[in-house]
C-alpha cells in the first residue's frame, strides 16, 4: 500500500517543530533535553483555547503545523487521532470531584473528559466535517492509527491527518501509567504524489518476527520512543529526516509488525 507524506508536525522535548526535529533526527544536530514551549494551538479561538486541556492543545498544535506546511485545506482532510491515555488531566479532576461528598462536576469538565476531545476541537476550530476517528491501542496506538490512516487514504481516496499524542498523567494517576515525557506528532498522508511530498511510504502488515523492531540509537530519543506511544513514530520520522530509502519496522501487537519502506521524494 503506497501513500505519501505531505506535512509533519512535532512537539516534544528538544523536538519543538519539524524543522528542528528534522535536524536532530537526521543526526545533523545533537539531541537535547528541553521542556517544549507551551503549544500555541493558535487556530483555536481564544476562549476555546483557554478552556481546552493541555493535551488538546498539544494535539492541535502539531496538527496545525503539518497542515500549514502542506498548505492543505482542513475541510478536505479526514483525521485519525491516537491517544493511549486520553484526557488524564481532566479525568483526574473528574475522579477527584466524584470522590468528594457532593460529587459536583461542571458540564465543561464532563464534555472535555471524552477521549475524542482533541478531535472535537479540531472540528470546531477548522469547521471540517470530514470523518474523524479516535483510537487507542496502549503503546501501539500510533501503529494502529497508521494502519487506520493508510487504509482510509487508500479506500476512501481522501487525505488523512494522523495525530498521535500523549502527556504524562498528573499524580496520583501518573503512578498507574508513568509516561516518560509528553510527545505529539502529526503526519498528513495522501494517496497520490504531489510536488510537496516529504516522503513516500510503502506499508504492509507483517508477522515475521525474525528481525528486531527499529529503534533509536540516540539514548535520549530512544527513552522518549519507548516511553510514549506517540513517540513510537520517531523511527519513521527519522527515516524521513535522513532522506534515504529506509525500511522501518514498527512493533504493533506481539507478533504483528508494520513495515514501512520510506523513500525520499
Amino acid at each position, binding site marked *: 500500500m*503506497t501513500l505519501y507524506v505531505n506535512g509533519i508536525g512535532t512537539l516534544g522535548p528538544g523536538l519543538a517543530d519539524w524543522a528542528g526535529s528534522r535536524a536532530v533526527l537526521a543526526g545533523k544536530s545533537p539531541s537535547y533535553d528541553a521542556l517544549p514551549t507551551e503549544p500555541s494551538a493558535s487556530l483555536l479561538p481564544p476562549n476555546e483555547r483557554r478552556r481546552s486541556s493541555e493535551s488538546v492543545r498539544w494535539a492541535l498544535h502539531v496538527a496545525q503545523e503539518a497542515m500549514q506546511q502542506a498548505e492543505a485545506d482542513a475541510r478536505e482532510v479526514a483525521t485519525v487521532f491516537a*491517544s493511549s*491515555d486520553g484526557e488524564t488531566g481532566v*479525568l483526574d479532576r*473528574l*475522579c477527584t470531584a*466524584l470522590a468528594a461528598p457532593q460529587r*459536583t462536576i*461542571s*458540564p465543561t*469538565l*464532563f*464534555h*472535555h473528559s*471524552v477521549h*475524542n*476531545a482533541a478531535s472535537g*476541537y479540531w*472540528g*470546531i476550530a477548522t*469547521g*471540517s*466535517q470530514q*470523518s*474523524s476517528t*479516535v*483510537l*487507542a*491501542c*496502549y503503546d501501539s496506538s500510533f501503529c*494502529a492509527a497508521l*494502519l*487506520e490512516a493508510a*487504509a482510509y487514504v487508500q*479506500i476512501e481516496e481522501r487525505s488523512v491527518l494522523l495525530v498521535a499524542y500523549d502527556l504524562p498523567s498528573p499524580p*496520583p*494517576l501518573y*503512578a*498507574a*501509567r508513568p509516561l516518560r515525557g509528553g510527545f505529539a506528532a502529526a503526519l498528513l498522508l495522501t494517496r497520490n504524489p504531489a510536488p510537496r511530498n516529504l516522503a513516500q511510504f*510503502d506499508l*504492509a*502488515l*507483517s*508477522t*515475521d518476527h525474525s*528481525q528486531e523492531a*527499529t*529503534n533509536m*540509537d*540516540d539514548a535520549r530519543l530512544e527513552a522518549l520512543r519507548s516511553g510514549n506511544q506517540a513517540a513510537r513514530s520517531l523511527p519513521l520520522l527519522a527515516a524521513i529526516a*535522513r532522506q534515504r*530509502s*529506509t*525500511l*522501518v*519496522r514498527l512493533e504493533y*501487537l506481539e507478533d*504483528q509488525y508494520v513495515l514501512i*519502506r520510506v523513500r525520499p521524494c
Partner: protein
Amino acid sequence: MPHALVHEHLEDDVSRLVDNRGSNQAVDDGPHDPQDHLDAVPQQRHVRAREMAPLILTHYTVVSALGKGLSETYEALRNRRSGLRPCDFEDVGITTYIGRVDDVEDVFVDGGSTSAELERFDCRNNRLALLGLQQDGFIQAAIEARERYGAHRVAVILGSSTSGILETEHAYNRRNPATGALPSSYLTSHRYTHNMFSSAHFVRTYLGLRGPAMVISTACSSSAKAFATAARFIEAGFCDAAVVGGVDSLCLTILYGFASLELMSSGPCRPCDENRNGLTLGESAGFALLEKSKHAGRPGAVALLGYGESCDGYHMSHPHPEGTGAIKAMQAALLRSALIPGDIDYIHLHGTATRSNDSIEDTAVHSVFGPSTPCSSTKGWTGHTLGAAGVTGAVIAAMCLTRGFVPGTLNTTRIDPILSSHVMLDNREQPVRRVLSNSFGFGGNNCSLIFGTV
C-alpha cells in the same frame, strides 16, 4: 543516529508486497496461510471506488437492560417491555432511570487454563463484555473463525466511551489520606481495566485472536465506527475477518456528567415525544463477526452494506443545528452501499430523547429521506448505551432483517408535532430488506450504517 535499517531480505519482502499490489494478476483472497508473513498483500478491489462489497455478519449478539442475547432482546422489543428502572446503581443520588444489565456483578472473568492472564482484566466493563461474548454461541463462532483464517488474520475492533473508568472512580475513594496515592492493586490493574484499549485487549486475549486490534473512542458513535474501520481493514487486506462491536457500562462519570449537562430525564426517556425531557443512560455490550461474503455469504444472511462517517465541526456537546454532519453521514452510507433513500425500509434513529438531538436528527432524516421512510428510536427500551449504542443498533437492525419486524418507539405517547419524519410509535410485522442505523456522539462525531440481507 538510528540503527542501520536496511535488512536485505525484508527489503525483498516489501518489494514483493508492492509488486503484488501493482499487478493485475488475480489475487487469491481465500484464507491465508498463518505462516505466510506476506499476509498483508492488499486484496484487489472488487468494486468501484466508494462502493463496498457487502460484509456478512455471520454471528452477532447483544446484552443490554432488555436481556442477554438475541431471543431475550427480541421478546422484549416485541412485547414492548422496557429495560429501564429507577436508578439503583451504587449509591447514586440522582432522580433518574437507568438501563442496568442484571447480574454483571456476578460474572466471573475466568478463562480456565489462562485464568491468571484474564483475571487482571476484571472490572464491570469487561464483565459486561464477557457476558456479551457468552451469548448466542459467539465465542465458538470466533474460535471457528480463528481456526479458519488463522489467529493473526482476525481483527478485534471495538468501541467504548468510558472503558473501565469505574475502577478509577473507586480507586480515588481509596486514596492514601496522607500521600494521596492510589491503592497499589489499582496501579497494576489500570492498564487492563480503565485504559481505553482494555476491552479489545480483553476480548482478543479471551478469544485467542492475534490480528490487528484497537478501541475506537468517539463517544456515542464509537462502536458504529468500529464497523467502518473493520470494513476498511478487511478491504485493505490487514485481516480476513473481524470481531467488531463495543461495550460501555454504567459509572459515576456518565451519570453525574449527563446530570451536569441537564440532559437526563427524571423518568424513563420518551424519544420524539412532544414532552420529552432528556435521555436515560444504559449499558450494553454487542459483538458481530464480520466476514467477506465470498466465504460466509448464504441466502438471507445479514450484511453490512455501507457506512458513512462525518463530523459536525460545530460544538463539543451540541449537534449542528441544521444537522449537516448527520446528513453527510447518512448520504455517505447510501453512496457506499450504492443505494438510494427509497431503498431503505427502516431507520433506527440515534433518538436519545433530548429536546434538541431528536429534532435535529429529524431535520437531517427528513432532508435525506423525506416524510415516508419509517423510523423509530429504541432508547425507551435500552436507554442510551453511549459507546455501545452503535453495535446495539446494528444488532437490532439485524433482527429486523431476519425476523420481519420493526420496533416502534417506547414510552412516547404523542409524537412531537414539529417532527416531520415518519416516526413510528407502534411495532410492525413486515418484511425488511434494508435498515439504516444512526449513531451521533459528543464532539460532533457521526456514523451511519446500512444493513441488509444478501
